[in-house]
């Protein structure tokens, strides 16, 4: 045995620094090496920054994604809401049409209040954002309550106690210790990694490989365990994030509602000075206004995209001019043709309009000898409709002889009667004007 003399160690000398200083070797053994910090040899699965001041789990999880999502959402909110608030402030200074919503009522009648209230929106949002970021960083970079592992001497002592009480097999079964806590039996489990009996409410985190006091869970969103020491930061983070999300959501919904209402009520941004006119298009009820737009009857398409064009090249257009039938117009000797101008002039003189276009009835077209007047319908009648008399293109059948010889006989019996043709094509309904003509003279000229 070596002749040794133990050096007396003054406890005061060893306690000059804080209690958490790196351990010095016993017996005054002076280490020529740099004094290492305990974090450098920490056995758990953690990362340390700033010389041990900040720590987190080794796998940071999706913490960067969490930060990016919060920053981007808040950044977009501040960018666009600030623009909107500036616009809103500007609009509140102008006189606008009164709308039937409470918001516009407030804007019109309380410009001072609105102008000052809108200042608070970015301020409150900014405070919440800062709070969220601070608490998130504190949750992520704070020790959650890790229990240091038992040193060998302590582990041996515990093992000895267990062996004394239980069986002395090489690999004992999972060890538990029952204790009484406030008159209730609680089992304490032995942690094989940390070599100690875990205190109550302490669990071993498999990701960080540490026993954590009052272990709640390992949160990948913050990249750290949530335990006794950082539970309050985590809770504050969650609550403040909820408030921030609700605040942003509320502002966006209000903004959209204002936009929707102003568009609905057709409030134009240009103001008429001194004019306090109402909205002529309102139904005087905000719900009705909304329902009319959203749930009103669906109007049809007016452009008839799938309709067929007529065989002739010139598409039929709705004009007030009389369109002369081509085969009739080609015939110079046909006295049923007449210029447009004369027809219009004759129309201006007619006083009685009478419809005679009934199917099956003989038609007569009294015409003058000099100026043939014929009623010309500008819309083509359906082919099934029988036509007779000098009605030109009614039947679209060139073989149709509107003026048979028997018509001559009847014509003599007719008096002055203006003829009006009512086209009954569906497309012409409501779109094409009606044309009527006046035939003051008697006479009948057969139409070829």
């Amino acid at each position, binding site marked *: 045995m070596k002749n040794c003399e133990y050096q*007396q*160690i003054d406890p005061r000398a060893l306690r000059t620094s804080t209690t958490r200083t790196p351990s010095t070797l016993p017996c005054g053994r002076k280490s020529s090496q740099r004094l290492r910090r305990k974090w450098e040899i920490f056995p758990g699965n953690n990362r340390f920054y700033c010389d041990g001041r900040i720590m987190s789990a080794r796998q940071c999880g999706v913490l960067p994604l969490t930060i990016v999502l919060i920053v981007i959402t808040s950044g977009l909110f501040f960018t666009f809401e600030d623009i909107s608030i500036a616009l809103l402030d500007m609009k509140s200074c102008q006189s606008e049409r009164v709308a039937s919503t409470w918001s516009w009522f407030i804007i019109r009648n309380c410009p001072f209040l609105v102008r000052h209230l809108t200042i608070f929106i970015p301020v409150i949002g900014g405070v919440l954002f*800062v709070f969220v970021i601070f608490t998130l960083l504190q949750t992520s970079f704070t020790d959650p309550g890790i229990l240091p592992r038992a040193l060998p*001497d*302590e582990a041996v002592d515990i093992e000895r106690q267990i062996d004394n009480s239980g069986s002395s097999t090489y690999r004992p079964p999972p060890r538990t210790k029952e204790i009484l806590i406030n008159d209730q039996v609680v089992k304490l489990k032995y942690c094989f990694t940390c070599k100690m009996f875990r205190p109550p409410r302490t669990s071993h985190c498999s990701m960080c490989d540490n026993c954590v006091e009052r272990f709640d869970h390992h949160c990948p969103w913050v990249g750290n365990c949530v335990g006794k020491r950082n539970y309050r930061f985590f809770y504050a983070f969650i609550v403040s994030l909820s408030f921030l999300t609700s605040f942003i959501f509320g502002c966006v919904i209000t903004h959209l509602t204002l936009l929707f209402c102003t568009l609905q009520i057709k409030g134009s941004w240009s103001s008429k000075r001194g004019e306090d006119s109402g909205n002529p298009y309102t139904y005087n009820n905000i719900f009705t206004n909304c329902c009319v737009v959203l749930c009103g009857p669906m109007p049809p398409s007016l452009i008839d995209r799938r309709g067929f064009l007529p065989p002739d090249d010139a598409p039929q257009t709705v004009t007030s001019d009389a369109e002369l039938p081509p085969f009739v117009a080609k015939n110079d000797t046909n006295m049923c043709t007449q210029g447009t101008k004369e027809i219009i002039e004759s129309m201006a003189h007619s006083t009685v309009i009478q419809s005679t276009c009934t199917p099956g009835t003989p038609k007569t077209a009294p015409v003058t000898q000099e100026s043939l007047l014929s009623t010309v319908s500008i819309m083509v009648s359906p082919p099934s409709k029988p036509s007779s008399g000098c009605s030109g293109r009614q039947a679209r059948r060139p073989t149709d002889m509107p003026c048979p010889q028997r018509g001559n006989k009847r014509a003599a019996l007719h008096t002055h009667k203006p003829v009006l043709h009512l086209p009954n094509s569906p497309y012409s309904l409501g779109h094409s004007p009606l044309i009527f003509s006046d035939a003051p003279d008697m006479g009948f000229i057969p139409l070829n």
Partner: protein
Amino acid sequence: MAETHSLQDLRQAAVASKVFVQRDYTSGTICKFQTKFPAELESRIDKQQFEETMQTLNNLYAEAEKLGGRSYLEGCLACLTAYTIFLCMETHYEKVLKKIAKYIQEQNEKIFAPLGLLLTDPIERGLRVVSFPTSKHHAGRSVPWLDCH
């Protein structure tokens, strides 16, 4: 010629002569150590002295973890400032821990060191145990080592 021993030698020799006082969980998860007098220290220290020391330690820890007006005020103020005041000021618990460290130092100087014992600060063990390293070889002498890690 004085020759210092390595840590391993000391540990091998003294592993059986370290006395650990475990936590007492009967009142819950608060920091409290058992006041039961360990059998290994029977010949080394007065039982009453030991119990008095442990009780004082328990009281100090209870003061650190006390729920009262001051702790609530501190907590609320910290919450309102997003816990940034912890960067500037010391928490109540840390102040009490300093007081505990000072008390243990005084106890070691006055009582335990003359008896060849050394009371280690539980904070160094994660507040799990209070250890009394003893040495049977050098009874009466100063404690040869400090329980450290």
